[in-house]
């Protein structure tokens, strides 16, 4: 998988980027594997957590950014809690996700990205999450990505839809889904927050669109010149790389 994309990074650039964003500790890893042994999701990962750290140290940036690992991590924080070297691995995964979206690396789990974009889109639109709207938007985007991805059997697509409809109805019947969003008064305040636009899901529809990049506040922490560069592409490519291109 990794070999099918041209290398876009110099060796070790990723580690530098991560260290610039406050995670100097990655140097300290001595591969005790405590993170991997505690991780509940290794069964779905291609690189194990300790391997991600090692690959980072070795400058294997492409492998790290195109790994499933960073997207199937559930952020349960077990690794960070147990690391004897006090490396915040869960936060490292956050940074790697963000770095991967900022570069020309298609995410290994596009649906996870689409979901989080839909979630944040809903937060920007209403100030709070409107679950039903968010889920519908996510499902449509994921379905569209699937269709564009290549030939899909009709049976599989209808199977997915049927399954979603079944769950949706079961939740609706029990009153677990609100039908209307719960909006806050200071939506504008919320829309000005953060630094990344929320992506394709929202940009197409909501009138205000995702926050215009001009309004976004200066980068998080004191990032060096390294970090803003990946941000420029963040504005668009994730929109396209969110799945369809693969």
């Amino acid at each position: 998988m990794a070999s099918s994309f041209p290398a876009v990074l110099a060796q070790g650039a990723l580690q530098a980027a991560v260290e610039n964003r406050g995670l100097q500790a990655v140097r300290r890893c001595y591969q005790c594997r405590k993170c991997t042994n505690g991780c509940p999701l290794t069964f779905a990962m291609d690189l194990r957590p300790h391997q991600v750290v090692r690959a980072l140290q070795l400058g294997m940036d492409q492998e790290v950014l195109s790994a499933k690992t960073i997207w199937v991590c559930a952020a349960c924080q077990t690794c960070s809690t147990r690391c004897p070297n006090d490396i915040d691995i869960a936060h490292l995964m956050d940074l790697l996700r963000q770095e991967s979206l900022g570069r020309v690396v298609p995410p290994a789990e596009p649906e996870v990205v689409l979901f989080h974009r839909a979630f944040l889109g809903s937060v920007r639109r209403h100030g709070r999450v409107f679950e039903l709207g968010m889920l519908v938007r996510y499902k449509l985007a994921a379905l569209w990505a699937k269709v564009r991805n290549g030939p899909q059997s009709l049976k599989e697509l209808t199977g997915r839809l049927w399954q979603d409809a079944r769950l949706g109805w079961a939740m609706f019947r029990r009153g677990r889904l609100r039908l209307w969003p719960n909006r806050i008064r200071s939506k504008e305040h919320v829309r000005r927050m953060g630094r990344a636009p929320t992506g394709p899901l929202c940009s197409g529809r909501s009138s205000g669109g995702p926050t215009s990049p001009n309004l976004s506040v200066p980068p998080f922490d004191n990032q060096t010149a390294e970090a803003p560069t990946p941000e420029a592409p963040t504005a668009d490519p994730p929109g396209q790389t969110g799945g369809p291109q693969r």
Partner: protein
Amino acid sequence: MIQVGYYPGCALHGTAAEFDESLRAVCQALDIALAELADWNCCGASSAHFLDDQLAVELAERNLQLAVQAGPELLAPCAACFHRLKTAQKHRPGYEVVIWHVNEFFAHPDRLAELRRRVQRPLRGLAVVPYYGCLTQRQPKITDAPQPEWPTSMDALLETLGVQVRRWSYKTDCCGGSLEVARPDLVQHLCTRLVRAAQEAGADCIVTACPMCQANLDISQAMGSPMAEKTALSPPREGDKGEGVNFPLSLAGEDGPRSRPAEGGSSPLSPPRERDKGEGAISPLPPAGEGGLRSRPGEGGTLNGHLPVFYITELMALALGVGRPARWWRRHMVDPRPLLERKGLPTE
């Protein structure tokens, strides 16, 4: 009567309304006034920190500003909200407000004594496992949890209510969290493991204080088998039932971190994909009466071997005899009423 700031979070106004209602009922019974923050916004949950660090802190920070105005204490019952608010507080020091999660809030000695005094209907006969989940505990640097690997606050609460607390080692294991939407197969796998462990511990139900845990455990059981069949990474294998943790044995020894030189263009760090598929086998919960579990065929009734998943506040309200539990039970995916009836507890 004490007053506490209240940050319900999106879930308690939506998918987890019964958590909100039962919490309010319990607080009213214990003379605690909840002052909901005016015009609070979403804390960003897991999505914000996945995609944008800055947004994650800023979303939570606005709520901290509101909380400081509301008073010295803030109750954030949703585990994800609690975690995000605590994180923001650590990142942006200066917000003098004590952020409480439900378990620790009620397990505070004063409130626990008050609770003990007011319990009207001890829930004897109900065997439960307390499920704390991840975000109320980890990481301790953020949550200030005294015992992140073996928390006991909910145990104390449950014992006060008179229930039988069963010992299990999955108190703080992950349910999959927000992966539920994009990768339900993974959540199904993790939740199946949890439910089996709870059954093996002899529990009648699981008790949690996190809307995401409740939803994942509840939905994965109710939608169980068909969902697992369709989304499984590979079909369940023979002899895979009831084994609990199905961890790759080779993890400890083979595909080591010592980087071998790359061969044939493939990454030395990538383990063979084939094996991952085999190990990721997701097996659906066996129907009642099958498999090596305590499926309790005689007792199962309409529960079909599934365990209801309660919010801690629902059981507290039940023991205190307050609120309108009938409305809450209706919202559960795994209907808890047959269990309550069997234990001689009111369902209305």
